[in-house]
């Protein structure tokens, strides 16, 4: 690629270059429509048969000031010939509506040397001298950083088609990008039509003109032309983000009630459901707080209806006591925790995997429950269905962990083939069998059937106090021990039905990387790369955290070293000042050490953004170097 250093316009023609994948970003002030353009772009890619992953770039404020670093709003689209499972490394091409928003992305390490920036140049001639200066300084700085900046008169070019380029520029940019990446313009036009359907023909026409105009502009002014070959499949696909997938999963599981209190980044799952849930007879309760939200769901569940509550860290904290009650009284319940950065209010819109311990251990006393984590957007759908089934079969709360990355990422996946048996059966109102107690614990499995109000003869009083199988309050030593044991046996029973995790890569080798949650795609991609480079590295990814998937110690034993890679905080494995014992470990690593007694190593960080495959690749190479498998220089070069 040629750098267009001192020229706003690049003249050079040539055939499209074939690449396996590309990462494109569109960044703007909020309200300039970058996300809409990016989503249309991504949909066209997906329809053409490319693998796609999109990530929203969200500013912290509702309406951040224009042209500010923290105000970057936009989207990243990574698309490729094969399935794309994560946001990838640094961007290839970036369209920016002003220069300041690029700083937000630079701080997020989103660009590399050679990233092409297609930059709106109107600021160079702004009436405000300060703005002109900022612009000039920034462009110089970008170039010094090795970015390839093309200053383009986007605003001016749009004036041909609209009097208000601020509103139309996004479709112009879509046209540009379609040209650069050789996308089917008819498909893009369809997206434009769909997007503006409600605004009427005139608006549609204007935007179609902008779309075409953008394409022509790119053809005339830019030499970049790439082709990311698509591999269309016959399979039916859907494209959703993780929160929509959760919402769809709620419906597919036949849930009756979602009880929630708004909290980022979980709320959008409810926003989605709010429009459609009632078509399936479901109801969304927006409670006065998170405590009431879970209490309401527990009430509905006690009454035989299937219920879930959806929240994020601070909300999960408030539900701690009620989760303990659900454990104690064996109330089925699904709790979805869309993790964000913590602790406290933390990083509300950002990703972290910091709630594993809270999910496992928060409620005082012995409070076993199912804890699962979705690793992909598709799993956000399917795991809700599993969670509901487990909640009812095992008469237990189930915490399903997802995170901000899954919640706002979008990708195509196989359209679920809906099955009736996913859906909760209507509640049982047949008479309760005589002589059967409300907690008729099976002595082996701890399982019991629960009476539902309305069932004649099943009357019992649910209580959070220690109780016998009759649900009678009992304070004697034996009753409490039996209660604890029965509640625990259920998880041994569930554990015995789980399969060991699948190993990605060889069954044995030098290094096994263990992950959980949304990092699956990134880790697997990095492992793929080191494997291609000839290293004996494999990975596994856990979905069941409580009970834990079986066979781990045995698998771990087949690798020279085992390490987790996580998005949560840890001290360096050697501890600060070399105090290994008190080193605070990444959460899964700490947990696996206790469960398996294997010396599980770890690497984790809390950047508030998804891991990049290149970053993970670097970490793996470093560990291989420390093990003596690679030499240090090779690792350094890779990690660079």
């Amino acid at each position, binding site marked *: 690629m040629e750098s267009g250093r001192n020229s706003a316009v690049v003249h050079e023609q040539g055939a499209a270059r074939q690449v396996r994948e590309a990462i494109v970003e569109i960044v703007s002030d909020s309200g300039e429509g970058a996300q809409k353009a990016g989503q249309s772009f991504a949909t066209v890619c997906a329809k053409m048969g490319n693998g796609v992953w999109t990530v929203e770039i969200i500013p912290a404020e509702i309406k951040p000031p224009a042209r500010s670093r923290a105000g970057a709003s936009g989207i990243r689209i990574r698309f490729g010939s094969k399935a794309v499972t994560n946001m990838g490394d640094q961007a290839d091409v970036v369209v920016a509506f002003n220069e300041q928003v690029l700083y937000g992305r630079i701080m997020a390490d989103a660009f590399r040397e050679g990233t092409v920036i297609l930059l709106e140049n109107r600021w160079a001639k702004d009436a405000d001298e300060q703005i002109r200066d900022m612009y000039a300084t920034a462009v110089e700085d970008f170039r010094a950083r090795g970015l390839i900046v093309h200053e383009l008169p986007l605003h001016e070019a749009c004036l041909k088609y609209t009097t208000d380029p601020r509103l139309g520029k996004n479709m112009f940019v879509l046209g540009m990008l379609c040209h650069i990446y050789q996308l089917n313009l008819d498909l893009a036009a369809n997206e434009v039509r769909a997007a503006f359907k409600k605004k009427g023909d005139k608006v549609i026409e204007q935007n179609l003109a902008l779309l075409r105009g953008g394409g022509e502009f790119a053809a005339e002014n830019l030499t970049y032309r790439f082709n990311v070959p698509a591999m269309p499949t016959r399979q039916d*696909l859907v494209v959703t983000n993780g929160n929509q997938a959760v919402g769809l999963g709620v419906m597919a599981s036949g849930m009756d009630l979602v009880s929630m209190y708004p909290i980022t980044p979980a709320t959008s799952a409810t926003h989605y459901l709010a429009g459609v849930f009632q078509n399936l007879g479901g109801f969304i309760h927006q*409670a*006065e707080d998170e405590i*009431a939200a879970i209490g309401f769901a527990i009430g509905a569940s*006690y009454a*035989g209806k299937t219920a879930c509550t959806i929240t994020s860290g601070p909300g999960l904290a408030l539900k701690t006591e009620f989760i303990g009650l659900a454990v104690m009284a064996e109330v089925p319940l699904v709790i979805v925790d869309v993790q964000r950065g913590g602790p406290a209010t933390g990083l509300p819109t950002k990703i972290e995997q910091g709630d594993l311990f809270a999910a496992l251990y928060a409620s005082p006393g012995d409070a076993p429950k199912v804890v699962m984590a979705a690793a992909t957007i598709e799993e956000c759908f399917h795991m809700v269905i599993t969670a509901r089934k487990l909640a009812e079969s095992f008469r237990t709360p189930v915490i399903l962990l997802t995170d901000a990355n899954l919640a706002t990422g979008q990708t195509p996946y196989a359209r679920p083939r809906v099955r009736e048996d996913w859906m909760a059966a209507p509640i049982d109102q047949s008479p309760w069998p005589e002589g059967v107690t409300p907690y008729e614990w099976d002595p082996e499995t701890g399982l019991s059937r629960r009476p539902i*109000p309305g069932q004649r003869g099943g009357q019992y009083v649910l209580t*959070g*106090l220690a109780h016998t199988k009759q649900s009678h309050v009992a304070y004697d030593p034996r009753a409490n021990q039996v209660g604890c044991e029965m509640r625990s046996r259920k998880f041994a029973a569930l554990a015995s039905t789980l399969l060991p995790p699948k190993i990605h890569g060889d069954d044995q080798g030098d290094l096994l990387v263990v992950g959980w949650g949304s990092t699956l795609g990134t880790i697997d991609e990095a492992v793929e790369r080191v494997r291609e480079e000839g290293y004996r590295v494999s990975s596994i990814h856990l979905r069941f955290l409580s009970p834990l998937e079986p066979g781990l110690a045995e698998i771990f034993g087949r690798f020279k070293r085992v390490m987790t890679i996580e998005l949560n905080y840890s001290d360096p494995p050697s501890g600060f000042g070399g105090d290994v014992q008190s080193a605070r470990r990444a959460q899964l690593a700490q947990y696996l050490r206790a469960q398996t007694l294997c010396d599980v190593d770890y690497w984790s960080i809390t950047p508030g953004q998804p891991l990049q495959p290149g970053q993970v690749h670097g970490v793996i190479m470093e560990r291989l170097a420390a093990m003596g498998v690679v030499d240090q220089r090779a690792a350094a070069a890779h990690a660079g």
Partner: protein
Amino acid sequence: MFGLKTDWSLEVLPRYFTLEDYEGGMARWCPGCGDHGVLAAVQRICRDAQLKPESTVSVSGIGCSSRFPHYMKTYGFHGLHGRALPVACGIKSRRPELTIWVATGDGDCCSIGAAHWVHAIRYNMDMVVMLFDNNVYGLTKNQTSPTSRPGSKTNTHPRGSFLPPLNPALTTLSISNVSFVAQTVDWNPVHVYATLKAAYEHKGLSFVRILQRCPQYTPKVFEEAQRDPSLMLLLEHEKGVQADPAGTKIYTNRTQHDPSDINAARQIASREDVIPIGLLFRDADRPRYEEFSSLGADVTIEEKVQALEKELDRFAI
């Protein structure tokens, strides 16, 4: 209402329920505790209304009074301190056909549960909420409650508490969508029965504050009012609580109060010279949350599958 539940016709053999069908074993409250009488009144109402025990649910938080569900032979939910109302609302939300009795204490409802109190009033779901107000934390052994009178000597305020007590009826009357507020005293079984019956018959959330004796920790607070019925103000009205006159004839202090007049209700509720008993306010036409929350119960699995497929179509590419 009485014996005329709409689904009776479904029963092959009509069942007749006696008091025993609602009695769940010996109540473990202290002798002389006001809770006993309220329990008896509720059991009588259930019997008189021939409520099916399996379609009746009593819900509570934690406290002496919250042991209530254990002494009923219906379904019961004895949950967490302060959280009776969210649970009760959750039950009602999707099972509006169940009859719900909520037992909550002055600590349970007005202190730790205050947020739910405010919001449950606003949701106005059809249930009877009995506030057992003994002006103290009973179960945890004598701490100040939000309704304790100033100067109360408790284990947390041995020199006397200092804040004016909350007025649960008045506060409730000032929460939007309030639909029924009454007040009664445990030591008048006739009035308790009549008040709770009116509450049961009201469609919406019926909030009944029951002044409840706790001989263990607050033996004195209602002594005067008990001894001297003229300290009570009996609210009478054709639209009010219709208690058996034999049981209320001791109350010389009476007033006609139209329970549809909310301004008057607030004024009466805020009086500190007398204890008003009877119906302060009723409005049968307020929206009830279950009218919205219970929609969709008739959607079949097939319809659900169809609707879901339609949704998936929207995301299909």
